[in-house]
């Protein structure tokens, strides 16, 4: 049981880190889009 527990904690941690990575990259995309849209506005 202990092995299973630690095994699943490891798996979960890996998945979780992937989730965090996705979140961060979406934030970056979000920031870039904001910058892009402001640049476009300035050009108008």
């Amino acid at each position, binding site marked *: 049981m202990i092995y*299973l527990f630690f095994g699943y*904690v490891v798996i*979960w941690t890996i998945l979780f880190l992937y989730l965090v990575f996705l979140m961060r990259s*979406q*934030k970056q995309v*979000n920031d870039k889009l904001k910058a892009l849209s402001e640049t476009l506005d300035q050009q108008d």
Partner: protein
Amino acid sequence: MSSPINTSWRVARLYLRIADWSLIPLYFLMVVALYGAFLYAPTEREMGDVQRIFYFHVGVAWNCFLAFFGVFLGGVAYLITRKRSWDHLAASCVEVGVVFTTMVLTTGPIWAKPIWNTWWPWGDPRIMTTMVLWLIYVAYLMLRSSLPEGETKYKYCAVFGIIGFLDVPIVWFSIRWWRTIHPVVITSSGAELEPEMIHALFVSVIAMTVLCVTLVMLRMAMRLNSSMAEELTHS
């Protein structure tokens, strides 16, 4: 920046922020849930250790229906307001929902086989309803992928989401009724729950719910970002 894009941006930002705040609690909730299921909860007397799947199975299962309610809500709201963000909600819920439903339908048989010596106990209302739910989710995805982007797609998917949502309780009741006529020998959960088990279950349900909501929010933020990108490249 132009107003609709600004709104999209702020909403996406909001979702990302909420999801961000929920990340650390989510991590620890899940670890506690794992601890609860494997170490804290006692081994079930009749079923043995395989019963421990049940903590995740139930935690995930309720979220399938929660997500489907999200699909229904998104559909109705879209038809009323015609705002695309409601379609984002529906689509995100379908994606997360179908994954969760697949997990329920996989962990179910894994649990069932050692206990009842059958992979698939026909006639159990919950199992059959979940299977129909899965079919409706997949049908929704197929409908979605065969329509070109645009208002029509969102409208049609909204209609199908509503029809599907109406169907689920009907399926449930009709199977339950059928079971009273054709009683199935297998009893669904003969397990008596000791207090520690209830605690473990409780934590697991909360952990899975937070996971589901976080995933939906992330997907919605992704969709909002991509629709913003579309608009910016077209303007």
